[in-house]
């Protein structure tokens, strides 16, 4: 285990957690006036992605996209300002939490509609193939999106045209409050199903950061080398409510016991403890990373709070290019 790699993974995970916790903390103040879908508990997959991807590669994501935006290198200040509806936001206040974009790092957008960004990521891969560049296109999706027709259409097209696209499915077991058991037949593997459609697939345990990193890194390298699509499915677990800042283990769709069981597997906490044990120097350096990130996050919220709202008349601009 190389310290450098794992401190980087720690940094990525901690940063996402810190940002999302800060959103949860400030959300009740009522100044982030849009739905938010937090990735707390699911940080390991974007973290290993951040560690494996180039800034020139393309990525698209979903309503739960803060973590992917950050992992791709998206500007933190612009994201928080966007959630605050400010003109300094990454979409100038037109999109909010569910519509994040940072063209400087080829993070091409997120969609509020389940499954909607999947074919868009495949289209980016088609453009890469046409232009003959060495990029890959990454598509983040959840388990719910694999129930949408457009998912199958997109996977099929990626397979038939042999497109350089990496599908990254974060299976957190729930679509809003509906468990997998009412949505997909018992015992059927999403990855196996996609494999039958002609894609190379791999399954990862999102609570094991080392193996998840290896799977992600190998897949990114292979898609780049072969130009052919790969599908990854990672198990993970969302800690907070589907939409909003709070916990929701008391409303009846899952139990507190189930939540605690998954929380005990927290890859961030586990990695931190493991790294702390390696040396006292390491423990100090982790504290330094944490305080740097905490400061960065605080500054991002200050930036968002201090930024100006767009002019009322801006609502009518930009319908057409």
């Amino acid at each position, binding site marked *: 285990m190389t310290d450098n790699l794992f401190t980087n993974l720690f940094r990525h995970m901690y940063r996402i957690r810190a940002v999302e916790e800060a959103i949860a903390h400030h959300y009740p103040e009522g100044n982030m006036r849009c739905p938010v879908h937090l990735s707390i508990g699911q940080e390991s997959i974007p973290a290993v992605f951040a560690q494996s991807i180039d800034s020139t590669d393309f990525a698209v994501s979903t309503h739960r996209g803060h973590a992917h935006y950050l992992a791709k290198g998206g500007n933190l200040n612009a994201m928080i300002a966007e959630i605050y509806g400010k003109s300094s936001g990454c979409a100038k206040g037109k999109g909010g939490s569910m519509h994040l974009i940072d063209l400087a790092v080829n993070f091409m*957008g997120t969609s509020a509609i389940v499954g909607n960004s999947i074919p*868009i990521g495949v*289209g980016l891969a088609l453009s890469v193939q046409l*232009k003959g560049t060495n990029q890959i296109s990454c598509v983040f999706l959840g388990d719910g999106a694999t129930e949408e027709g457009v998912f199958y259409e997109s996977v099929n097209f990626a397979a038939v045209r042999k497109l350089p696209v990496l599908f990254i499915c974060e299976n957190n077991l729930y679509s809003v409050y509906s468990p997998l058991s009412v949505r997909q037949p018992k015992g059927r593997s999403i990855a196996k199903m996609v494999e039958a459609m002609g894609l190379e697939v791999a399954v990862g345990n999102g609570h094991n950061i080392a193996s998840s990193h290896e799977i992600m890194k190998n897949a990114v390298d292979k898609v780049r080398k072969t130009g052919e699509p790969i599908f990854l499915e990672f198990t993970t677990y969302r800690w907070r409510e589907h939409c909003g800042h709070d916990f929701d283990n008391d409303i009846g769709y899952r139990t507190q016991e189930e939540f605690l069981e998954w929380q005990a597997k927290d890859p961030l906490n586990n990695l931190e403890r493991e790294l702390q044990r390696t040396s006292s120097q390491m423990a100090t350096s982790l504290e330094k990373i944490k305080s740097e990130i905490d400061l960065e996050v605080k500054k991002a919220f200050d930036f968002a709070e201090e930024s100006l709202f767009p002019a009322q008349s801006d609502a009518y601009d*930009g319908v057409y290019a």
Partner: protein
Amino acid sequence: MEVDESVICYGLGVTDPKSAFGTTANLEKRFGSERVFDMPTSENAMTGVAIGAALNGVKSVMTHQRIDFFLLAMDQLVNSAAKWHYMFGSQISIPITIRLIIGRGWGQGPTHSQNLQAWFAHIPGLKVVMPTTPEDAKGLLISSIFDPNPVVFLEHRWLHNTIGEVPGGDFRVPIGKAKVVRTGADVTIVSMSYMTIEALHAADYLATQGISCEIIDLRTIKPLDWDTVMYSVAKTGCLLALDSGFTTGSVAGEIVARVAIEVFDKLKVPPARLAMPDVPEPTSYALTKGFYVRAADIAKKIMEMLGKDFSEVNNTLLEPTPHDVPGNWFKGPF
């Protein structure tokens, strides 16, 4: 495609022997299978693919042989293509062109004959183009391809075999400009696509009755050329809006509303519209008799609006036999 290497063309059947009613014939041979290709039967995903490719500078021209199949792609069209530019703060646009064939007749029936321009026109961020003549079809298609926005390009099946002069080369007709195809003094007929042909037949008849029609072929439904419409109505004081789609929520209804709101004082008679009934188009030859809006309906309506006796119209402007084809040369199958 010659002008710009980033233009690609795909759709179910664009490279097959029928080549989308001959409209994409030889394209693959000329520009290669990377830029011109057949596709899986996946209308929704393939629209998303066009959006994604557009994000990296590729301009897609997608073709569907019936608009009705494309309804599966409304998510990608409405939620993504139409909104990407706006909802991401005007940083990036979606230059895609979606060719959809509309029509009527030959037993196309309930799900092969819809004219849904009003749906698309309702969505901010979309442009909607409906050419009538061969010249406009070429000029507007090229303009659509090079427009930075998503354009829904509606082609009426009954116009595909129209013969007319077409300028060569990179010939463009501006989007958003209507054409006055006939000038007149007594009534303004606002029309689109195939309905313009029926309007011309009606105007010929009305001329023999001493009624002078001004016919505006909209060519673009969105953005609509309101200046041309208002100018003409102010001149004639009489408006009949035609539509190839269903009556309720039609483009014709929007035109009547806006004219009534903006130039009410210029109107000499109440404005009117003629569109398809709010009924799915039936298939049977017998059931479509008298079903379509045609020249006689237009002539009668205008004579009624102007207080003239229209009892003779049907004797002159007979329903053609067969009534369900653009001409006797049309033998189907679709």
